[in-house]
């Protein structure tokens, strides 16, 4: 047969406007997952300053907390973690076979809950920055 035409993977992400709720959930869960595992390694690395003594630990952590970008990134981390938890709960229900008919609505609910929790936490997270 004559050769066939392969439209490639880029075509997939170019169609993001046509994504369904379930697809967004999958993409975002993956993305937040990568961020969180990356953070986990970084986190343990930073906490490893404890192995160099109490003063090193205290100075490292307080030093980081004073950098404005770090505080803002922490809010981002919260958003990422909260979404992963909310959608993760949704997935646990799906895995148990509960509520499959409203799986797309439960995705929107998890997005909204994530937004609410993050916005409510911003004051605490950015406290003392100004």
């Amino acid at each position, binding site marked *: 047969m004559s050769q066939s035409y392969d439209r490639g993977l880029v075509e997939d992400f170019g169609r993001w406007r046509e994504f*369904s709720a379930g697809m967004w959930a999958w993409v975002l869960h993956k993305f937040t997952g990568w961020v969180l595992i990356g953070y986990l390694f970084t986190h343990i690395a930073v906490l490893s300053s404890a192995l160099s003594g109490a003063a090193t630990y205290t100075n490292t952590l307080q030093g980081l907390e004073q950098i404005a970008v770090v505080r803002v990134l922490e809010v981002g981390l919260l958003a990422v973690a909260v979404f992963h938890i909310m959608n993760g709960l949704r997935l646990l229900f799906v895995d148990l076979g509960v509520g499959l008919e409203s799986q797309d609505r439960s995705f929107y609910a998890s997005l909204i809950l994530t937004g609410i929790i993050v916005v409510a936490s911003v004051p605490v997270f950015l406290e003392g920055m100004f």
Partner: protein
Amino acid sequence: MSTQTPDSDDPQAERMARKEERADERESSTPDVGDDPITLKVFRYDPEVAEKQEPRFDTFHVPREPGVTVLDCLMFARDHYDSSLTFRHSCRQAVCGSDALFINGRQRLGCQTQVADLDNSDTVRVEPLPHRDVVKDLVVDMDHFYDQMDAVEPYFSPTEEPEGEQLQSRENREKIKMSTRCIWCGACMSSCNVAAGDNQYLGPAAINKAYRFYFDEREDEERQEERMKIIEQEHGVWRCQTQFSCTTVCPKDIPLTEHIQELKREAVKQNLKFW
């Protein structure tokens, strides 16, 4: 085809001659598409034709009539404008599974999709199924799909033949009823991003087929275990990420994700039994 003289006694020859006349008329005349025609944009690709070696979209205007389907539009375009427009179709009633297409951004059957039901019923954009290699125009290579289906042994095969009749209870039939509706159209597999990435993933259609037989009470436990071994491989049920696209696009409304989830739970239960 030769044109036989219509004044012979052969009614078949007469009919063929008239048919060819009509076909010639259709191709040579400009069809009347009414004052509110549908704009049909179709993906064209033909490796054997110079102008179509790079894919392009051709635009056709087809008449808007009550109940007109996307398949009707394609057939009109082929009959009146461009007889080289190539697409699969057969039954026109959503049972053969031939005309699964990507219509206005979603996998659908051409014959089952009325233009009036689309969000945008003025412009209909038709493309071949995503994640499949395109052979020509809207025809895709379905070999991979059939390979995955064959991999789950999609046929009724109890270990021993029963004596006498083999009855199935009404409840059991109800349980597997939806899973028997599959028409092998390939829409689900085309919509699954995991199937697109992982070539070895069995895919929703194949796993649903396995479900249909796994839960059929007329097959024995030994057969069930064999079937489970196939689908609990690394590229079987575990690759499903519950994206739900398959369930959304299935033209026969089969709850595919639900069936895959049930098999995952079943696999875990079977394995926990060894503890």
